[in-house]
């Protein structure tokens, strides 16, 4: 086992995911705790992994480009690094105001 692999494994941890509007409806959950796989570095990685978890997730992220994400209450792009985030949100484009 290399040094890098050791570090990666150390960072594997539980993360809170929250979903809103039709993303929430398609997944069928408002929130959940997940064990983040070690190789999941960015939001895009996380979406790829979530889509393997069932039909609801597949439907929610069917059009990946349209789903927005936030890390700890701040908007982020798909290439954003998850790092030590504690809450990640997925939701459709906002329609408030």
């Amino acid at each position, binding site marked *: 086992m290399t040094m890098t692999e050791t570090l990666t494994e150390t960072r594997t941890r539980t993360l809170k995911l929250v979903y*809103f509007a039709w993303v929430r409806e398609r997944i069928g959950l408002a929130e959940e705790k997940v064990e983040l796989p070690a190789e999941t570095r960015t939001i895009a990685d996380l979406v790829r992994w979530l889509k393997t978890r069932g039909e609801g997730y597949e439907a929610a992220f069917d059009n990946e480009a349209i789903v927005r994400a936030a890390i700890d*209450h701040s908007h982020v792009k798909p290439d954003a690094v998850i790092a030590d985030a504690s809450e990640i949100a997925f939701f*459709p*484009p906002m329609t408030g*105001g």
Partner: protein
Amino acid sequence: MIPVIRIQAEDFDLNAEVAALTGGRADIGAIVTFAGLCRDEGGRLTALELEHYPGMAEAEIGRVAAEAANRWPLSGLVAIHRHGMIKPGEQIVLVVAASAHRRAAFEAAEFMMDYLKTRAPFWKREHLVDGSTGSWVEAKGEDDKAAERWS
């Protein structure tokens, strides 16, 4: 100038918000208010349901307000956004911007609304007159364009 940000289910009162902002001051020359109301879309809707992301809604509107305060010389700034079921004719959102001069107040209020539309984590769902729950309102490309004007 500390912006007032509130996310609430309850209605708000225009006069009360303006009074709280101007009370006892004599340096404000211009107050612009924007109130967004629920429309019935030609009699099609009985209500709009507003879902929001608690915590992030306050944080994001706070960031937008801080940017407005940074761009314009404001004497006061209020942003209130309601959530839950809202009937046609009822108020959904309020922005109040006060400044010594009118241009800053107008621009700050318009900026706040353009950014609230595209950045504040709220989602509208239609409730129809036949008692059914309609679809989620789709985001409009024109709202993104409106927000881009300021960048």
